[in-house]
């Protein structure tokens, strides 16, 4: 409150302050040796002020009263500098006066689990991978993160949250001749992560999947390459589809990109405002939702970093583009209100528009029936490579593994699988989405955006889906 009072005395029309304590624990085992066992703590506060229509932000690790005063004065000084090159007056829309506390639901606090128990689990998983002949390196890891965050603004909001994340995975690498093949579990890059407790990680059964993962990596060395430069039917597994949603739906629906705020860095978006409500983004089976309320999602919380309550809003309904990810300032420009998408990666960063949980809603298909219904195609799963243009049109993804589909059956194993397309053409070619039985909340704890760089943790629910006439195999 000291910072808010001082900012107000200095003439700020609006101010907010976040105090954050963030604790991380990471353990990794590689080839039978503990690669790292680390604990990390960071704390600090950031003050954001709006002064005569211009923003300023300053932050410090030092929480003494003297430093609070100093960074508040510095934020005001920065806002005054912003006024030298400022535009129209900022409208934040309706005041935000949220009050309350939020705690991520969990059964077992991962920080309460003995280090020895975590190491035993990882050593077992790592050793199981090592039993498979031909594996060059193998790695297992777990991570836990706890963030305690206080938010207050000059409009009367005051919220307190404790957000808990648990993550981990295994990865095996096989090397033979000029081939290098990797398999991961449960998610690509061995990084599945959720808001929740240790019970979620136990449910993934890393040791129980270790030999399969390692065997697949070895088998890929001698698998046939993905057919080159053909157009075929593509079925994407859930985790790969989650990243497809992240890159080709999540990012282009960020309204700050649409308004050019990220033009110099992350890029802009093809989903310009005149398309809202009348652009056919995908086929009728494509329904995409932004939410911050679903269990396990890395975008699940009580309030965003502007104090706006967690909520759920459609982005694409029956294929039609109907919504954006918004902040207070950008929503007001469209005559809407924020849907709680302002998130900062820490005390030393401003909140910017970030994905929360952006998910493909389940369809009606059973996976086996979907494969049986596919005469000729390729199934791809687990991301290995991802790239998309600065307006989010042209994408190219590679996956760790693929299988040929012939006459409704999974066939030969395929290595070095890639596919490419143009976002709306791709989503309009989607003719089937699997049902809720196959739907998983995947975590993407490595989304980069903003300057200075911020890494966000986002959630993406997805079940496998089928796409027609997709170009695959760009490698000769």
């Amino acid at each position, binding site marked *: 409150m000291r910072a808010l009072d001082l900012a107000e005395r200095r003439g700020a029309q609006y101010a907010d302050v976040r105090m954050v304590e963030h604790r991380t624990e990471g353990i990794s085992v*590689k080839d039978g*040796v*503990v690669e*790292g*066992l*680390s*604990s990390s*703590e*960071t*704390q*600090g506060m*950031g003050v954001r002020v709006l002064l005569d229509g*211009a*923003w*300023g932000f*300053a*932050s*410090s*690790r*030092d929480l003494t009263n003297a430093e609070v005063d100093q*960074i508040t004065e510095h934020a005001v*000084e*920065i*806002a005054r*500098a*912003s006024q*030298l*090159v400022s*535009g129209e007056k900022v409208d934040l829309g309706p005041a935000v006066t949220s009050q309350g506390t939020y705690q991520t639901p969990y059964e077992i606090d991962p920080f309460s689990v*003995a*280090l*020895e128990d975590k*190491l035993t689990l990882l050593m077992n998983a790592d050793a199981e991978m090592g039993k498979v002949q031909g594996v*060059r390196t193998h790695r297992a890891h777990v991570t836990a993160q706890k963030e305690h965050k206080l938010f207050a603004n000059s409009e009367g909001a005051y919220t307190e949250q404790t957000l808990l994340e648990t993550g981990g995975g295994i990865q095996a690498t096989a090397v033979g001749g000029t081939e*290098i093949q990797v398999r991961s579990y449960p998610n690509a890059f061995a990084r599945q992560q959720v808001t929740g407790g240790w019970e979620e990680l136990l449910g993934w059964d890393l040791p129980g999947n270790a030999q399969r993962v390692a065997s697949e990596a070895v088998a890929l060395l001698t698998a046939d390459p993905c057919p080159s430069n053909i157009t075929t039917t593509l079925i994407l597994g859930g985790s790969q589809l989650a990243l497809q949603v992240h890159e080709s739906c999540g990012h282009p629906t960020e309204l700050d990109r649409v308004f*050019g*705020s990220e*033009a*110099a*860095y992350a890029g802009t978006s*093809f989903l310009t405002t005149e398309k809202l409500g009348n652009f056919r983004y995908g086929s009728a089976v494509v329904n995409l939702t932004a939410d911050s309320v679903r269990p396990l999602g890395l975008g699940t919380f009580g309030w965003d970093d502007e104090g706006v309550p967690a909520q759920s809003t459609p982005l694409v309904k029956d294929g039609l583009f109907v919504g954006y990810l918004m902040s207070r300032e950008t929503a007001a420009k469209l005559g809407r209100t924020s849907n709680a998408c302002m998130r900062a990666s820490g005390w*030393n*960063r*401003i909140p910017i528009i970030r994905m929360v949980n952006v998910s493909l809603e389940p369809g009606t298909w059973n996976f086996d029936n979907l494969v049986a219904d596919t005469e000729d195609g390729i199934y791809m799963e687990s991301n290995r*490579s991802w*790239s*998309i*243009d*600065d*307006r989010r049109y*042209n994408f*190219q993804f*590679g996956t760790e593994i693929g299988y040929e589909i012939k006459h409704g059956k999974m066939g030969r194993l395929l290595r070095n699988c890639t596919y490419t397309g*143009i976002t709306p053409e791709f989503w309009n070619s989607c003719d089937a989405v699997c049902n809720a039985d196959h739907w998983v909340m995947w975590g993407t704890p490595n989304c*980069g955006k903003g*300057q*200075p*760089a911020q890494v966000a943790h986002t959630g993406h629910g997805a079940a496998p889906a089928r796409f027609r006439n997709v170009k695959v195999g*760009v*490698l000769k």
Partner: protein
Amino acid sequence: MIEEKDAHKITDTILKRCQGNPAEINVMTNDSALTRFANNIIHQNVAERDTEVTLRFFIGKQIGTASTNRLDEAGLEELVEHARANAKASPPDPNYPGLPAPQTYNRVASWDDATASYSPEKRARAVEIVCKLAAEKGLNASGAITTGSGELVVANSQGVFTYHTQTNADFQTVVMSNDSSGRAQESAWKVADLDAESLGKQAIDAAMRGHNPVKIDPGEYTVVLEHYVTEDLLGSLNFSGMSAQAVNEGRSWMNDRIGQQLMSPQVSIWDDGLDTSGSPLPFDFEGVPKQRVDIVRQGVVMGPVYDRYTGAKMGKPSTGHAPPINFRGFGPLALNLFMAPGDKSVQDMIASTEKGLYINRFWYTRIVHPRECVMTGMTRDGVFMIENGELTFPVKNLRFTMSYVKALDNVEAVGKEAHLIVGEFGGISSHIPALKVNGFMFTGSTV
């Protein structure tokens, strides 16, 4: 800033609390500010002050790590206890080579008072120049100017204590019309070395010339690549194989090729932490003095960079390339890359090209296959057709899928001017020229 004397106090306090156990400490301070602009106005303007202390605690060959930014007695006590507990729980690492003894370090100039104290108003004035120039042409400028300072302390229980200060500055801008864009960037450790007006004019010029881009067929083209692209080439080769760990695990483009002619004789790449035309750092995060390491000499693969851990595994001494304690698992890292300039200007390279493409920048590049460092990505912020030695028309952005190893084998000419770019992630600096490359493969185009 904590200054050297207080840094000593922090490391002494920690070492005392370690009670004779071997220990290694990194202290890093960051006092930086960034002014960001878009649509010809400043829309984000931020500053931060932080100090992070990281400790590796050893019980024999059992290793535990902890970090904190709480510098009071209680914070440092907790730091030691967390690291001790982690070490106790951890089985011994048989490969751990021990801590280095005190070394002799070169001092390098990398501090500039004017950069450290650069005010928000001065940053805003630099932005104002570019925004005004863009607005006068009916264009939209966006970008960022960064100024800041940092300290790095590496200490250990063997008596190592070394302290380095550094300032940094960077200006980058993208200028856009409704159908074109241009970009320019420069990094330096002296803010006075940045010329915002000149950078703005370069970006404006590209945006003005880029109207009405034409969609062309993908395929193989000769390309003239600005130094921004070269930075991406080096960065990708760095992450996919310049480290001894990548070589040891068989996943580097160097594997089985050390001593072989893999690239054009015009290509020489090295890492040098002492060269002040880069972003110098005289020692690594283990406290080992940085050595200049030739990675590719006249197209011949010379070898990777080493830290003590991978060096011990492979029977080689450290070259001074250990990353920060929290990133040790990634293996050694080249942080100060250089590519030898040649004797051609960008204009010379264009003039010598009968048909090809001029490309300002690559974007969103990702590895497709590690062995040949096959990458995919998009062109961005300025692509032009070259016909009969002249830029003839702007081209819509293209997707490439290309081995960067092959690209550097296909180098026909190297630019005579080298520029410093400090990357966003990891602070890797590259001092790099433009290139002319034959047979560059484009596999798609965008809308």
